[in-house]
């Protein structure tokens, strides 16, 4: 599979979950595990263009897939993605545990809907639980990210979305 624009391969036990393959085999521990039932959303990644919960997928199901994890958001692993920047500026995280999943869900949301309303933002991250922020900072961050992304597009015409 391609993960964060790099080709990876490995042999796994058939029952290995994708999230465990990413974390344990590839060392991409930015993707978190907060539950075992697909409810918390901390393990959300982008797989073949869609936000998915990587604890609900077997690693073998992701064979040949195009995957983006939180580690792949920053350009060259350095310059923060505008969504990450917005979360930093608008206090979109406290303990940070849910953040990787929320970032990926936000990316997926903003790609489909660049100008979401508050209700649409809340719906877009409904599958990600956060216990610290009450979602207030998160909603503000997503809104700020939407503005930054659309401004970025208008002024520099630069495609800031991450390619898969």
């Amino acid at each position, binding site marked *: 599979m391609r993960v964060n624009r790099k080709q990876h391969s490995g042999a796994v*036990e058939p*029952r*290995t979950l994708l999230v*465990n393959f990413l974390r*344990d085999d590839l060392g991409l521990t930015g993707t*978190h*595990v*907060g*539950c*075992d*039932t697909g*409810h*918390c959303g*901390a393990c959300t990644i982008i797989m073949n263009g869609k936000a998915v919960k990587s604890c609900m997928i077997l690693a073998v199901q992701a064979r040949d897939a195009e995957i983006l994890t939180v580690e792949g958001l920053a350009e060259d692993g350095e310059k923060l993605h505008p969504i990450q920047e917005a979360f930093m500026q608008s*206090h979109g995280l*406290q*303990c*940070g*545990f*849910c953040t990787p999943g929320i970032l990926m869900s936000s990316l997926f949301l903003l790609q489909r809907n660049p100008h979401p309303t*508050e209700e649409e*933002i*809340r*719906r877009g*991250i*409904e*599958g*990600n*639980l*956060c*216990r*610290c*922020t*009450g*979602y*207030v*900072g*998160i*909603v503000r961050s997503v809104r700020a990210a939407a503005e930054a992304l659309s401004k970025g597009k208008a002024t520099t015409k630069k495609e800031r979305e991450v390619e898969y």
Partner: protein
Amino acid sequence: MEGQAYMGIVRTPFAHARIRGIDLSKARASPDFIAALTGEDLVKQGVTTVPQNQWPPQKPAKRYHLAVGKVRFTGEPVAAILVRRKNSLEDLVELVEVDYDPLPVVTTIEESKKGKTLIYEDWSDNLSQRNDVKWGSAEKVIASAPYVIRAKEGIARQGSTPMEPHSTLVQYKKKEDVYEVYATVQSVHGLRGQLASQLHLPEERFHVKVMDMGGGFGSKGAQSYPEPLLACLFSRMTGLPVKWTATRTEEFLEAASGRDEYCGITLACDMGGKIVAVKAEVECDVGVTGTQNHMSQLSLWSMLGPYRIPNVDLRLAVYATNKMPLGPVRGAGAPEGCYFIERAMNIMAQKMGIDPLELRKRNLSAERRPGDTDRKPSGEEDHVRLINDLISQPRYEELLKWRKDVNSRFKRRGPSHSNIVAGLGVSIGGRSGFGGDEDEEEHPESDESPGGGDSREGSSQEKAEQWQQDGSQSEKGGESKGEKENDEASSWGESENEGSGVELDFESEYGRVTLDRNGKVTVYTGSSPHGQGIETTFAQLASEELKVPLDRVSVVWGDSVLVPAGVGTFGSRSAVTGGSAVVDASRKLRAQLFARVSELTGTKAEALSISDGRLVNTSRPSAELPTIAEILERLGLAEMSAESTYKVSSMSYSSGVHLCALTLDAELGTVKILRYVVVEDCGTMINKKIVEGQLHGGVVHAVGGALFEKLAYDEQGNLLTGTLVDYGIPTALDSPDVEVFHEVTPSTGTLNGTKGVGESGTIVGYAAVMNALNDALSLVRPGARVDVAPATPDSILAAINQPH
């Protein structure tokens, strides 16, 4: 860690049973099996029983970290195994066969009271503790008062539910004879103390490290859990690094949950709207009892809110059941107490037909409480100002009008027919409404308030002071030594930080600040951040004190070697105590630096200042002074540092007024919170965004507690809510936007003017939501009430359809 082994816990599926035998043979036969431990092994190795706080007075409960002879709650650890591969962990746990002989199960306070089945055989009944707070003559006053209301209120058992489950990784280093312990705890040094005392080893043998941690909310506080201890034993046995991570279900079965308190309250008011008496019987289901069994005692104190009540009769009974031990959950008893009184205040206001905020205003204590000194924080008494602030907000008017509009359409016939009712709710308060200074002679409520406030029983005053004082101690995490006396507050610090020579207690925290030749400042703190923004705010404090740019300040925490002593992060204490210690150490460091500069350059120390990281002579700004690097070089020092264990003159907590606006669908029983407004005073704000973030999260925690969250057990003691979806913490769609307005009355009890704000959103929030809901309910059917949280659609519909 390279070569790590994985630990799994075998947990009982029975809530109450005798253990006839444990058969490890099938597990042992697996090539992945490495080692196992049972309760008998712990006894043989002399490991102590689960520590239990000595305050408040309670029956000792003898229970091991791996059950010995008997299991007492579903999910209680029975055995631990160590395996080679993560993937085989669950398989091997299943191969351990335990022969149980089930016993009758006690899962409710009612059953516990009957005492037919005893949780601990050496107890005569299931009553764990009992305590009263009493002054005046409540009974008599209630009998003759013109307005009396009664209510049965409660908050179900609820979890802290941080997003990251508990985890630990231990490497025993044979050569150094040191346990390197990575753990998810809110107190690094608290865990060090617990492990040392349970394994009878000196504290220096444990190097405890906490890395970025995904929330705590009390569940990672002082409760003593088995896993770090078991991982230490396994690592010593095998020499391997031992890793354990809880599944979410294990988290729900074992991580300390809170609340589970119920209160029959009677409130009496005179014709003028002055509360003349409160009487309450509080019952708490403490489960099998745990390390910290004082939450309901703190509720009792919080119940008096910021009010002056001349006649008080509060009785608490705490019962053991076959449920996991109760422990602190954000607010630790204060949300319950605040909810009990604030719900009752609204019921009273409704009965009297007066504005609920007006009723509160009439009963707030004076600007300064008797017994207050200048050292005291001034925040607790500022509710009048906060209430006035709220009323003056345009939002307040707007919401009153909105409520009227929505409700005018309710049940109207015709095209504008609606099932939707609007409700508004208010509540006020904060953590521990009155002073808890241990050296305060007089109880603030014992002043000459009208109606016989001075007739309070002496014995309960003593008890009261004992609670206040010891309560602070018991919050500190990890103490397990039984022989503590009231006057040994400082010896606690010694025992917790033995070897470091540093004395700390609940009102102090360790801080050290260093300045190196590159002008880089490093802050070392005993606080243990996990989402509170402490790295940011403590860096800000040092940066402001030392006048060095923020990006040159770094903060070190979460390491029992790099930071020799500490108390930790819980109980709204870090900015107050840890922050004060950072300010104190920074000031000491600055004084030390200026003294040396003065010696070297002849410039008077008083004339020295720092600007943007450079030394300045304020009386002659043009004068050239050496750089900090040159000074340190001349002194032959790599760095200069100062330490502090600053003790705040009183713990300071923020106060708040909350307003909740919601709609109720009277046919479905569902609730939607539309607006939520907080007006609060947490004193000086080091960082406004972070303060507001704490309030946002705190409020939504209360929203979950008021409307959704419940750890439900069936009559056999099975946990029915073992996943996040069954338990129901609020999603983004369930949560309101939270508007926050501030008053800033700096605390005089802390060095930085702050008052603890971490829990205040949760403490005050329950009542605001429940009062709003009941406001809406009263329109659907007069007299319909839901007084037990969470107010689920079922209980709301039951209230609508049945007479109260």
